[in-house]
């Protein structure tokens, strides 16, 4: 298991919670490609981000979790069921939202979700009720009798989510749920996923290649690259604001840094260009920063009470552990 470099801000996931997904030394080899290489991850209830570039092994992992691929070696269980042997039971309790478009144009949202509810094992009447519920939860109550072909991209994504949600799954696997959405639609989709993960009490795994997006809603993050675990981290501590203030100026970063250090503030270099992280102690940091910027007549573009940015977390691996710790 991954060990936290700095106990204050990152915690390894604690083992006293029920695990949703448990994969141990998971390896998947195709003829000449190793898609997953000795991957060990544990997913706890809540929302977990599965981050990785295209080809990192996300799809392979999802297929194994659904019991559709048998791993070359290693153990994997989902909702306490062995994925090698009980894929059918797992698939009955896991909602899957594929990345690509998968909706017929010429049926209504209700018919479509009802049918897929039946395909999940719901009896006819229950499927109808659950489809109506699922569509209501994703905010398509009014439009549920409209043909899916008339829907916007955002609404289609919601239908895809509704079909995964129908029948109260124990786990949702969402593959790139914000694909193709405009910023507003993306925010709405993320808010919806957040609500499902928190209010509905359904464990959610969100696979994405956009870390900046899913970090906003995740409790845990798992990053994989080349089929290997890059990092797993709990973001519990990061949901609160960190005691850092980000200061971004268009120019004169070094000048400002010198000035602030002079004033007795702890200033950390930043990976993002032209940005400084200033530790928020008891001192009137905001005032000092404001005055410093004003004195130096620097073009201030951003002053932000900092939540940790997770891409930095993962970037550390490349920068090197010592640099990462210093920055944190």
């Amino acid at each position, binding site marked *: 298991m991954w060990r936290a470099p700095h106990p204050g801000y990152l915690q390894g996931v604690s083992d006293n919670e029920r695990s949703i997904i448990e994969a141990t030394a998971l390896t998947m080899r195709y003829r000449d490609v190793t898609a997953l290489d000795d991957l060990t991850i544990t997913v706890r209830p809540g929302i977990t981000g599965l981050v990785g570039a295209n080809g990192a092994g996300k799809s392979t992992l999802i297929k194994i979790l659904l019991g559709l691929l048998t791993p070359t070696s290693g153990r994997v269980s989902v909702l306490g069921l062995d994925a090698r042997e009980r894929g059918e039971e797992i698939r009955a309790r896991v909602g899957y939202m594929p*990345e690509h478009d*998968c909706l017929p144009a010429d049926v209504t949202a209700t018919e479509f979700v009802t049918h897929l509810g039946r395909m999940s094992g719901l009896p006819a009447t229950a499927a109808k009720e659950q489809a109506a519920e699922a569509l209501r939860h994703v905010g398509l109550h009014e439009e549920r009798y409209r043909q899916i072909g008339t829907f916007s991209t955002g609404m289609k994504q919601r239908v895809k989510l509704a079909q995964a949600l129908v029948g109260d799954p124990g786990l949702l696997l969402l593959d790139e749920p914000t694909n193709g959405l405009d910023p507003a639609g993306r925010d709405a989709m993320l808010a919806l996923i957040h609500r499902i993960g928190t209010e*509905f009490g359904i464990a959610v795994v969100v696979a994405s290649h956009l870390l900046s997006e899913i970090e906003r809603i995740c409790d845990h993050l798992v990053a994989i690259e080349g089929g290997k675990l890059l990092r797993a981290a709990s973001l519990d501590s990061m949901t609160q604001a960190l005691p850092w203030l980000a200061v971004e100026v268009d120019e004169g970063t070094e000048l400002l840094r010198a000035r602030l250090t002079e004033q007795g503030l702890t200033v950390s270099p930043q990976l993002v260009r032209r940005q400084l992280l200033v530790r928020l102690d008891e001192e009137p940091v905001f005032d000092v920063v404001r005055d410093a910027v004003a004195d130096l007549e620097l073009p201030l573009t951003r002053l932000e009470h900092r939540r940790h940015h997770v891409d930095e977390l993962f970037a550390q691996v490349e920068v090197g552990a010592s640099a990462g710790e210093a920055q944190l």
Partner: protein
Amino acid sequence: MSTQTTASVIHDIGYKPYTGPRQGRAHIVRALYIHSVRGIFGLGRGPKAKIVPWFVIAVMLVPAALNVYMSSTNKALVMSYGVMGYHLMLFAVLFVAIAAPELVSRDLRHHTLPLYFSRPLRRGDYPLAKMLALFSSLLLVELLPVLVTYVGQIASATSGHEIWLDSRAAFPAVFVAFAQSALLSLISLLIASTTGRRVIATGAIAILFLATTAISGVLEDAVGTTYVSHSVSCVEPTVNINTANGNVYGFGGGQSGPPTGGVSQLCPGVSNENLTGVNGQPDPNKPGYADLTVTYQTPVYSMIAKAGGMIDPVNVVEGTKIWVFDSTDDLIPNPSPIGPLYAAELALLVVVASGGMFLRYRKVSVS
């Protein structure tokens, strides 16, 4: 959570976990089967989806209704059992050419398959449900004229023996309905499962069945068919019971004997086709009757003509029927002695087409 205002109260009833029963794979396959059958007949769909299936059903009922009328008035059937499957084949092809793409091409077109395979269904369950759905739907449609005719015949039967004869005559038609439904539905599903474009699938299915029928028709008719002349004598009444006219067919009035169209009614075993001559003389020993001498030709088929039917799935079914029941309706050349080959091909086509369907869906990706 509730938001309270002075005017109204909005209740968000929130998420309710589902605690009801969950069904197993067998139920899910059954649900997919029923869903597919409904789709075939356009039930729960718009009126456009109903046009073709219900038109075919209407067409199937026309000869059946006429047959019921004919048997109620004790006349020969308009369309005998033996020719039903063969003559109505065009409509069966129309039915599957529309239904098969509806069943499988749609899901390919819209990439819906990942949603099925991420559910409890196994890879084989999807093609199984689709094949059973189209097979049973087409079977129902093809059995319709047979069964309606049979019920009509039974209702107007006057003796148990008649019922027995009728059942025996109907049985090959039931066999044809089964075999033809299996072959047409499996082959057309296999074709439709290769493309997500419905129009192309429909076209390919129609062309396949119509072209093979045409080719095998050419082989049967044009290539290597010779004729052998026969001459039979039979006795026919010349007295019309109703008018007591003693010269029904007007012997001596320039015409010698009954019209050629009526010969098959009078002389058993003689078909109206290929008649070369009819001659009649009043029977000197039997007043009120005439002796007829009918000359006709029967085709002698070359091996090419006999094997020609093997190109066309519909004729494969017909040839197998002829071999199994030893009954021919002269629709296609009697394949004897290669009848067993027809039966073997029928079995092989069913196995290959259904096996092809299972193979087709074994490697479908979910993402």
